[in-house]
């Protein structure tokens, strides 16, 4: 087993990885930028090294600085987490050159799936159905894109070739809107991934986003751990995930799993990975992309399979054979995850920054909290807005939903705004209960203002009144002020007991 693992990441995933290392008896090394000195992952690790100013490109994305820390700390493996350098083939290569194990797939597999256009072409050759879009490999220029767009058909999506996490994507309904969408998508992709290349994909109407989790060792063995449903999204960013997916039956699961394994074996994949599919109303599924890393939503798969995916990643990177054959994988019960972001759902999800003054975590049966924050944590605009993942397990989907409602109610964050009310509203929605939703649900068919219980406005009125009354009492206890100031208060007679 490795002696010491460096976690090249921050926030909740860094804490998650440290936990797996602790469970394996492996020492941990954290890296941090100026604003992360007091972060949970730094306090939790065995060693911690400062790597630069807050902007990611001067710290968490600096391969040279991270490898310097490997040198100083004597770490023999690196876990890249998700985002940042996790899907940069040059980082995996640099690790190999340095002689430090990269806990992830080979650089060649990262590269093959990293260029989304190449990925589509590669798996298509292996007989995997893909979402219709621009064919062939390589970066297309605007002129070529504009020319081929009508063949792809509208509405379509402009997507970042090296993208992920829903960034650098734009929905385009008409050809006239395409030029502006290209400018905007390229700029966002350039900022997020360092490359503004884009490709086109036809929008599959009424599609659900279903992905399959894979584990492959370095000896050619590969299994799938079932699927996840990720259709609750906003601006192409996932907000809520569940395992298994509500309308996937055993047969569809088996077929999608086989295709996912086939795609992975086509590129000689090893370690953890996820194949994303779009599934239409007729249960046809199409390859969307493959994520060659650990994903944010991995906990729901862990909860229904009982497998610790991060521990398996570390074992696989050490050269161990997979401990499971496909027949050993059983899905038990139902898990749901809510991503708690620092965003205000009542104000168009505007990001919220500031200090977390108080924090109350949910607990009790079937509740898991993967958090990167603590009381006193500062939320800054330099990194993405994910604070915590709330994950619940239930014997049935219904039980999981009720349990998530309980967990959300127990979760308290004071000091910044969070999207907890949004999740609460989704869980009240009849369509969500019935599993009747697709990727357009949040943006088109859902509103924060629905279904207010009728007694609540009066309770809110009473609370506001009492707060105002209390404030008034406190204020009139400080009766000062220049006597020459003629104000409304004085005119109306402000003196009170």
């Amino acid at each position, binding site marked *: 087993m490795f002696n010491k693992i460096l976690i090249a990441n921050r926030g909740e995933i860094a804490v998650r990885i440290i936990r797996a290392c602790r469970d394996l008896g492996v020492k941990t090394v954290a890296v941090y930028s100026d604003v992360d000195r007091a972060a949970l992952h730094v306090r939790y690790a065995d060693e911690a090294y400062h790597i630069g100013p807050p902007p990611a490109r001067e710290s968490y994305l600096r391969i040279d600085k991270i490898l310097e820390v490997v040198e100083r700390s004597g770490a023999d493996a690196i876990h890249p987490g998700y985002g940042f350098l996790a899907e940069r083939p040059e980082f995996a290569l640099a690790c190999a050159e340095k002689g430090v194990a990269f806990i992830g797939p080979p650089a060649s597999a990262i590269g093959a799936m990293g260029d989304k256009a190449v990925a589509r072409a590669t798996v298509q050759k292996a007989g995997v159905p893909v979402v219709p879009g621009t064919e062939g490999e390589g970066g297309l220029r605007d002129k070529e894109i504009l020319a081929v767009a009508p063949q792809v058909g509208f509405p379509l999506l402009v997507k970042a070739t090296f993208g992920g996490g829903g960034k650098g994507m734009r929905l385009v309904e008409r050809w006239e809107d395409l030029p502006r969408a290209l400018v*905007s998508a390229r700029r966002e992709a350039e*900022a997020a991934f360092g490359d503004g290349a884009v490709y086109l994909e036809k929008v599959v109407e009424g599609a659900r986003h279903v992905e399959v989790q894979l584990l492959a060792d370095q000896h050619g063995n590969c299994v799938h751990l079932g699927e996840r449903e990720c259709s609750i999204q906003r601006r192409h960013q996932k907000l809520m995930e569940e395992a298994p997916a509500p309308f996937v039956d055993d047969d569809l699961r088996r077929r999608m799993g086989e295709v996912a394994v086939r795609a992975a074996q086509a590129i000689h994949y090893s370690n953890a990975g996820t194949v994303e599919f779009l599934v239409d109303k007729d249960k046809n599924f199409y390859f969307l992309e493959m994520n060659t890393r650990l994903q944010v939503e991995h906990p729901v798969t862990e909860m229904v399979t009982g497998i610790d995916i991060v521990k398996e990643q570390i074992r696989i990177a050490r050269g161990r054979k997979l401990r499971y054959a496909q027949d050993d994988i059983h899905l038990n019960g139902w898990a749901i995850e809510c991503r708690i972001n620092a965003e205000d759902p009542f104000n168009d999800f505007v990001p919220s920054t500031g200090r977390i003054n*108080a924090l109350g975590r949910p607990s009790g049966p079937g509740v898991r909290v993967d958090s990167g924050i603590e009381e006193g944590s500062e939320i800054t605009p330099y990194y993405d807005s994910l604070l915590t993942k709330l994950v619940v397990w239930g014997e049935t989907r219904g039980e999981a939903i009720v349990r998530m409602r309980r967990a959300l*109610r127990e979760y308290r964050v004071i000091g910044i705004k969070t999207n907890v009310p949004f999740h609460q509203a989704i869980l009240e929605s009849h369509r969500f209960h019935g599993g009747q939703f697709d990727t357009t649900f949040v943006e088109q068919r859902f509103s924060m203002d629905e279904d207010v219980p009728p007694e609540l406005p009066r309770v809110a009125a*009473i*609370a506001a009144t*009492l*707060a105002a009354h209390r404030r008034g009492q406190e204020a009139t206890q400080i009766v000062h002020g220049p006597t020459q100031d003629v104000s409304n208060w004085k005119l109306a007679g402000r003196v009170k007991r």
Partner: protein
Amino acid sequence: MKYATTVGGQTFIMDVNRDDQVTVDGETLAVDFFSIDQVTEFSLLLDNHSYELLVNEADGDYQVLLLGHLFNARVEDERARRLAQAVRGFAPTGGELQIKAPMPGLIVAIPAMLGHVVQQGDVLVILESMKMENEIKAPRDGVVSGVRTQLRQNVEQGQTLITIT
């Protein structure tokens, strides 16, 4: 002390003259309004029904977050009501509108130009924060009277970016 509190179009007439009681539209309820953090978090017992809420005062209105629902409450005491009735009839003047940054971030594009006529919904500034681009749009029609920021500038929340008349 009498109050008229309006939430979502409904007005409740309340009487608060004891610490443990409140009368709402003629009905008297037992009340215990306990401040948890002395700032914004409260536990309210209303006839022994327990509610946890966050109360924030903003621009004279009270925002109440209760069981995942956000309410905007306007609380007027007797005095304020009389004053409000006295000044009614004065229409608000149009004036210069300041477009402020809703969050801290980096200015990556400024489509608005001094002197341009803009319509409601036109994109004035693009602000990058938490790795996403956010379009700041004109809340109403007008003319751009000032561009108070520049490309690649880091701005604070609440900082004025554009003015419109």
